Each structure stands twice: as structure tokens, then as C-alpha cells.
């Protein structure tokens, strides 16, 4: 009766009855579209749009400024749009890095076994035991806080669950008959790994990577809140910290980036859940 923790944690965030889930997930995934639009807008936004305006300091939400302005008179909606590319970049990079690393490590450990498996398995254990937030924190602190750097580090820290999953898949799949016959007809080892085994093992890794992206957005916001994001670009966590430091009288300037983080995380969890359902052949038929 032990439930799969990961399933409960990440899937079905919206509803229990399976009929409504795809609709709820579609709604969640639409948040991702919104964030993507914001990121495109933020990428092409001229710097003057978020220039300080000393005639409109700390203004509560109004028609002109739907999310109010911060202590320098900058429109919060525009600032949040300005911060969208960084968070989306982190989400995408972490998904790719953790997926590639996890598959490479897990496939090598599962296929080759012996000392390769021992070394990789210990490394996986290590990353599954240490607190990821602190590993990322100390690494980013010592190696530099550019957005790309931190995404790489978060990607490394979060690749362990993927690697463990892929390893387990490879351990069982390499015993199967189709692998033996592939070997018999003279397929090379890389061909067997990539074209025979991997297609059967890649789906859970993709789902896990999307979930990693959601976790990464939260970790990255936490780093920004502690002052460890790239100082040259707008970042939601840093925005919250900055406005928070200016006192609580402008709660709206914290609201906007907070909602943005939430939408991105919810969107990614919904995407992961829907992918999981799509890949789950047993449930589909």
C-alpha cells in the first residue's frame, strides 16, 4: 500500500477524479504559454521601460500600473515581464542538463555495471542525500552567480533522480531478449544503448526533467531572494527581496513576482503530470 511518493507529490495537483485532470492540466499548461509570451516580451523590451520614475513612487495598483510601482517608481508588471527570460532560461536549461546528465549517468551505470555502476551509484546517492539548495548555494557563491552558471549547477544537483530511474530501467532492459538479439546481429554497443534500450527508458526521464525544472525555478528564486542571482539582470526572487527590504508598505510590488513564480511552477507541474499521463500506456488503454 505504499504510494509512489513522486506520483502524489507532483501529479494530480488539481483534482482527484481522472476525468477532470486533462482539462485542469491544460489550464495549468496555458500558464507556461503566458510566461513564454512574457519572456519574449521581456527579451525585446527596451531598458527605458523599467527606468525609475520619481513621480510615481510606491503607487498601489491602478489602471496605469495594474501591479503598482516599486520604491523607484518602476511599473511592477513591466519589471516582472523583464524578469521572465531569466526564470524561463533556468527552467529550460535545468530540464535539458538534468535530462542529459541523468540519462548519460544512468545508462552507463545500468548498462556497464561493475565499477562504473559503483562510482555512479555512490554519486547518485550523494546527490540524493545532501540538501540540494545548500549545494547550489555554496557552488553559486564560489563559482559566480551568472544565470547560466546557476542553471548548470542546479541541473547537476537535480540530475540524480533521473539517473537513478534510467539506471533501474537499463538494469532490467539489458537482460531482455531484444537486446540479446540486437547483440547477436552485430549491433555496436552505442547503437544498442541509444537505439534499442534508451527509447524504452526515456519517457520517465523526460517527465522527471520537467519536474526538475519546476523545482529549479523555486531554488533559483530562493537564491535571488538571498542575493545570489546575476546582479545585471532582473530576477523575480531578487525583486521580492529588494521590495521586501523597502518595507511592507508596498505589498503589491511583492505580489507580482510572487504570482509569476507560482504560475511558472504550476505550469511546469501540470506539464509534467500531463506528460506522465500521456506516457502511461497502461492507463491509456
Amino acid at each position, binding site marked *: *500500500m*505504499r*504510494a*509512489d*511518493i*513522486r506520483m*502524489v*507529490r*507532483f501529479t*494530480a*495537483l*488539481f*483534482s*482527484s477524479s481522472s476525468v477532470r485532470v486533462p482539462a485542469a492540466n491544460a489550464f495549468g499548461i496555458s500558464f507556461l504559454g503566458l510566461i513564454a509570451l512574457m519572456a519574449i516580451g521581456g527579451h525585446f523590451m527596451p531598458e527605458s521601460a523599467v527606468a525609475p520614475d520619481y513621480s510615481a513612487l510606491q503607487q498601489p495598483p491602478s489602471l496605469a500600473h495594474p501591479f503598482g510601482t516599486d520604491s523607484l517608481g518602476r511599473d511592477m508588471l513591466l519589471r516582472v515581464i523583464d524578469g521572465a527570460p531569466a526564470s524561463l532560461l533556468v527552467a529550460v536549461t535545468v530540464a535539458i542538463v538534468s535530462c542529459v546528465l541523468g540519462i548519460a549517468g544512468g545508462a552507463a551505470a545500468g548498462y556497464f555495471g561493475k565499477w562504473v555502476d559503483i562510482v555512479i551509484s*555512490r*554519486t547518485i*546517492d*550523494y546527490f*540524493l*542525500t*545532501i*540538501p*540540494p*539548495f*545548500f*549545494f547550489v*548555494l*555554496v*557552488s553559486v*557563491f*564560489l*563559482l*559566480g552567480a551568472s544565470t547560466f552558471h546557476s542553471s548548470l549547477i542546479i541541473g547537476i544537483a*537535480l540530475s*540524480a*533522480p533521473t539517473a*537513478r530511474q534510467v539506471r533501474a530501467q537499463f538494469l532490467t532492459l539489458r537482460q531482455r531478449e531484444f537486446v540479446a538479439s540486437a547483440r547477436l546481429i552485430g549491433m555496436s554497443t552505442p547503437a544498442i544503448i541509444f537505439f534499442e534500450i534508451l527509447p524504452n527508458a526515456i519517457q520517465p526521464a523526460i517527465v522527471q526533467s520537467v*519536474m*526538475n525544472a*519546476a*523545482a529549479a525555478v*523555486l531554488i533559483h*528564486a*530562493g537564491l535571488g*531572494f*538571498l*542575493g545570489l542571482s546575476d546582479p545585471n539582470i532582473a530576477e523575480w*526572487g531578487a525583486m*521580492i*527581496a529588494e521590495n*521586501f527590504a523597502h518595507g*511592507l508598505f508596498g*505589498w503589491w510590488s*511583492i505580489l507580482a513576482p*510572487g504570482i509569476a*513564480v*507560482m504560475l511558472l*511552477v*504550476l505550469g511546469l*507541474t501540470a506539464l509534467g503530470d500531463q506528460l506522465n499521463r500521456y506516457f502511461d500506456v497502461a492507463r491509456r488503454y
Partner: protein
Amino acid sequence: MFSRSKKFRGAAAQFANRLLQMGVLLFLVVLTVFTLVHVGGGDPANVYLGMSASSEQIAAFHQQMGLDRSLPEQFLILLGRLLSGDFGMSLTYQAPVAEVILQKLPLTLLLMMTGYTLAIAIGVGAGILGAWWQDTPVETAVRVISALVYAQPEFIVGIVILVVVTTFIPWLPIVGAGNPQGGGWDALRETMLHLIGPAVALGIARSAIFARMTLEMMLTTLNQEYIVTHRASGFGARRIVFVYALRNALVPIVTTIGIEVRFLFAGAVLTEVTFSWPGVGRLIFDGILNRDAPLIVGVFFVVALLTMVLSLLTDIMSAMLDPRIRLGALANTSGGAS
């Protein structure tokens, strides 16, 4: 008699195995610190002596710290130093890092324990509510609120609590921790009053996962045939929900606690920064502001070590609760999620 002693030996061997695993992990933690410091830390002499130091001073410093030796030797020196609790001097506090951390740690542990106890209470309570009023707006509310809370970084909930308390309960002290060094009952009372805000914030922020677990597990149990049979044989609904369904939900909750152990400190630290609670979180914040590398590295080492000990303790606890879980095997279940 024989079987009992054999069983005991099995448990002892498993425990020894876990300790050995912990040793390997500890070694890897030191290796991480060593690699990171060497790749990105720069020359510590610049940090400690300042830019105006002469080359003789720098050479003397290198010799004193063992930085003129080979890399493997340096690694062994670092291993010895960290294992004996010598994390160097904090630049911010001008005191040994270990001393500074030990001084701040009790307040963090206090916040962590209170916060997570509240998180479990709130989460399990919300889960029971949702299961009791299954298929009603209450269940939907539990689901939606826990999803929203889950998608938030800890500090958002903290800020909301901060705003609510300062607006509606202005007499409740919420920033800082009073003056715990003062001692005596008044100081204790003061600290406890200050604790309410951050502990409730941490409790709400981390309750989402427990609410989902409890709800999910209880609904699964409630819809099973033996419960339907129970209901048909005339057992009261209250007894069914609280005795049968809740007991089944309890084991995965303990497992969840084991997984959450890795996120204990992260949650506490972000909450501390929001409420200026003077624990390890504030320490990290100061360390980042002042580029205090020994302090940050020391905090990482202590937090990693404590996390390992706590995860061992929760593993033992789940093994005691559920005999099907064996101690050795649990290493592989801790931390499926990120």
C-alpha cells in the same frame, strides 16, 4: 532464541552499513568543498590578508595554511580540518566559523522543529478535512490551496504572514528573536512570542505535501473494499476515517518526512531571512553580503552533516513503524523527488 539474536545481528549489520555509507557521503561532501574552493574560491590569502599584503606575507600564509603543498596533501589537510570542526575564521564575525554556527544553530533547530511539527499538524489536519468532506467544495479547497502553497517559495508565505500579523495583530512581536542571550523566563517568553510568526509561516509553507499525502492516502483507503464492508457492517463513519483510514495514511507520511529532511534547512533558512530570525539563515545572508567564503562553506558542511544524521534517524523510525521496510533498503527511497 537463536532467531532473535540473528535478527538483532541483522539489524546491527544494517546499521553499520548505513554508518559506512554515511562515511562515504561525508568524504564526498569534503571533496565537493575542496573542488569548489579550488575552482572558484580564488586565493584565500587575498581574502584574509587584504590586497596590500606583501609577497612574503602571502608566502608565509600559504605555508601556514598548507597551501604550498600538493593537491592530495591539501585535500587530506582539509579533510582533517573539517572533520575536527575547524572551518577557519569568519571574516564577518572575526571569530571561528564553528563557534559562530554553534551559537546560531539552536535558534534554527528550534524554528525548524516547531515549524515542521506545525506543518505536519496543519497538513494532516487539512488532509483529514478533505477526506471527511470528500467530493465537496472542502476537498476542492484543500486541493487548490495546497497546490498554490506548494508552488510558492517559502518566503512568499512568510511575507504574507508578516503583512497579516503587522496589520491585524500589531502587539505580536514578529521580527527577530527577542534577546535569547539574556536568559531567564522573560527572555524565554520573549523568544517564544517571536517564534510564533516564523513557525506558523514555515508550518503553512511546508504543509502542502503532507496535506496531499494524507488526502490521497485516506481517499485510497476509504474507497477500498474492506472499508466498504466495515461501513456495511455498521461501523461509524468517524471510527472508519480516524482509525482505519488515518492509520494507513500514517506510514507514507513518515516516509514523506524522511524525504522532506533534505529540505528542512532550506525552508528554515529562507523563513529566517524573511523574519530576521537570528539563526543560520541570517548567517548565510550576512555571509553572502560580505563575501565570507569560510562561513558559507562551514554552513554547507554542518547542514549536510545534520541532514545525513536526521535522514538516518527518520529511516530508523520508518523501519520501526513498518517492518516491511528494511533499514539498508531505505537509502534508495529517500529522495525520489527533488
